């Protein structure tokens, strides 16, 4: 790698370095051993000019400005693998990589796809640039009608925070409808925010747009306060992560569960409803922000195992060692950029792993994944028979909903 040693801007490094210490556990950066584990486990570490360990090295060499001159940090999908395996327990993803991306955005070094998603979030409250009015359009035709709190103003037991992709993406909408049917079948008293719901903002935060994230949190907080409910459930692990780990510091604090946790608590009620057999080998993909970041590994597997006919198999990367679908930390909005750099997709690696263990179904629990993995099955010839299913879809199918 060619690094010109002049001109040096040690002040850039110093300002950046000390800014890390303001963040929770940020000071742990100082304990870096330069062992290289992070750069090795990073799915795109081999392509980055500055993988995490080298960023810390650059800080210590007072040449952090060189990091900002490359765009390699945009290969980071915030999958947290680096942080999970760091022997010094440095919060690499949350602190180092995210702060670096923030600096990139402040410097105006933003790939155009990402820029569009951020502008859409600012303007419409969702990165897809969809009309907020249409956020509950997925409920059309569902019986009984889904309770939209702004319309009914009835207190509910459960506020279902549906999220961006689960609300709008055409591949995800069937899965979202499936979950609504399951909740109804279980007699859950739930409601959604519909047009009043804003993006959770977590992926925007991890893509370096902290200000936008805070704006989303504030807007969601204002809406939450309007209604009466006992707890929140989310479709999206990123929303779950935001509500559980990030919103409380901004004064927005509610009990929250991912839907797989919520359903797992009711598994005895669900089991007798699982009538239809789904005879298939099923591999479960641990979403980064459900598994590795928040430790929810067993509940989704238990739900899948409860379906008659399902034979659960494990892929080579699993649980804490799961392989990111490539959509996190802004990756959802950097597909073209990352393809240019890598000429491969993480979703394709993952689909190959599923094929390697002879699965018929790749089960997922994050709304980024069905479109990404399904896309990958179309380019990987061996995966042409592989089906990608949200856990909610499989449950609903077995429950004959």
């Amino acid at each position, binding site marked *: 790698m060619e690094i010109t040693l002049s001109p040096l801007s040690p002040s850039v490094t110093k300002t950046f370095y000390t800014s890390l210490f303001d963040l929770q556990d940020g000071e742990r950066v100082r304990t870096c051993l330069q062992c290289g584990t992070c750069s090795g486990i990073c799915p795109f570490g081999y392509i980055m000019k500055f993988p995490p360990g080298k960023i810390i090295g650059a800080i210590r060499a007072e040449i952090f400005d060189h990091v900002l001159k490359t765009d390699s940090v945009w290969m980071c999908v915030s999958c947290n693998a680096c942080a999970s395996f760091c022997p010094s327990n440095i919060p690499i993803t949350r602190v180092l990589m995210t702060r670096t991306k923030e600096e990139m955005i*402040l410097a*105006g070094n933003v790939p155009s796809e990402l820029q569009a998603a951020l502008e859409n979030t600012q*303007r419409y409250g969702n990165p897809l*640039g969809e*009309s907020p009015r249409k956020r509950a359009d997925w409920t059309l035709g569902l019986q009984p009608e889904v309770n939209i709190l702004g319309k009914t103003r009835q207190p509910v037991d459960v506020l279902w925070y549906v999220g961006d992709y689960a609300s709008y993406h055409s591949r995800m909408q069937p899965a979202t409808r499936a979950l609504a049917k399951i909740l109804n079948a279980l007699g859950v008293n739930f409601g959604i925010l519909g047009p009043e719901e804003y993006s959770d903002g977590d992926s925007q935060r991890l893509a370096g747009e902290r*200000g936008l994230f805070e*704006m989303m949190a504030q807007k969601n907080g204002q809406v939450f306060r309007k209604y009466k409910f006992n707890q929140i459930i989310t479709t999206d692990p990123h929303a779950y992560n935001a509500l559980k780990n990030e919103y409380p510091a901004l004064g927005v604090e509610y009990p929250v569960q991912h839907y797989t946790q919520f359903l797992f608590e009711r598994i005895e009620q669900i089991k007798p409803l699982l009538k239809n057999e789904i005879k298939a080998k099923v591999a479960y993909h641990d979403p980064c922000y459900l598994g590795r970041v928040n430790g929810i590994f067993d509940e989704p597997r238990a739900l899948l195992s409860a379906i008659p006919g399902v034979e659960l198999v494990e892929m080579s990367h699993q649980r804490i060692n799961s392989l990111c679908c490539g959509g996190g930390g802004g990756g959802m909005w950097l597909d073209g950029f990352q393809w240019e750099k890598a000429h491969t997709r993480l979703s394709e690696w993952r689909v190959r792993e599923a094929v390697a263990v002879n699965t018929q179904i790749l089960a997922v629990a994050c709304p980024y994944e069905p479109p990404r993995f399904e896309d990958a099955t179309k380019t990987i010839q061996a995966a042409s028979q592989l089906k990608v299913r949200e856990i909610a879809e499989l449950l609903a199918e077995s429950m004959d909903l």
Partner: protein
Amino acid sequence: MKIAVPIKFVPDLVEELTIDPSGTALDTTWLRLIINELDDHAVEQAILLKERSGGEVTVLSAEADGVDDFLFTAAAKGADRLIKLTGDFSAADNHALGRAFADVIKELQPDLILTGVQAHNDLDGSVGPLLAEYLGLPYVGYVAGIALDGNKVVARKEYAGGLVAEVEVKLPAVLGIQAAEQPPRYVAYSKIRQVMGTAKIEERPVSNLESSGGVVVGRLFQPEVAERATMLEGSPEDVADKLVGLFKELGTL
């Protein structure tokens, strides 16, 4: 170099547009307004020129929902002055808007005025050339690229088919922007919030909005929504024949 950029907000096409019961105007109940995309390019072009050659950029807009945020965003990108025309613009046509802008811009005495070459809801002409005429200045539209050269500019004017003319225009002048030299930049929300605390939006009341464009709409209507595709049936030969017929009919063969 003093650059003025008058901009306009237009209905956001992300929302489905509906027509009000009178049949002559858009229903405003759900109407969301957004910066005219080409005006956003004009702001970017002005800031690029300022970064290249120095100067002062003033962004002007009539008041509307969302305008303050846009003006602050422009300031965060590098605009120096923000001016908001206040008054009842609900019935103002482009002639009225052009006149209102002309009154304020006269005082600013800019060397260069940049604005989007058009907006999707222009009906009584476009703001740029109207404004130019009210100010007695030359106008060149469809500009994508500007080089400053003393008391004149060289504008890259785009024609159909990719042909570009380098056009020399004496200053002061109004240019209608088709595209900035680079797409409008992103500015972090934290920066915008900072600017909101420090930048000032100057308000200029406009009392006498003269909608003299003279275009009266009898009715608005929506073009027929495309139905699901008509399926061409038969053998590959049959379908190929139908397609060839279609290509001929539409003049592509």
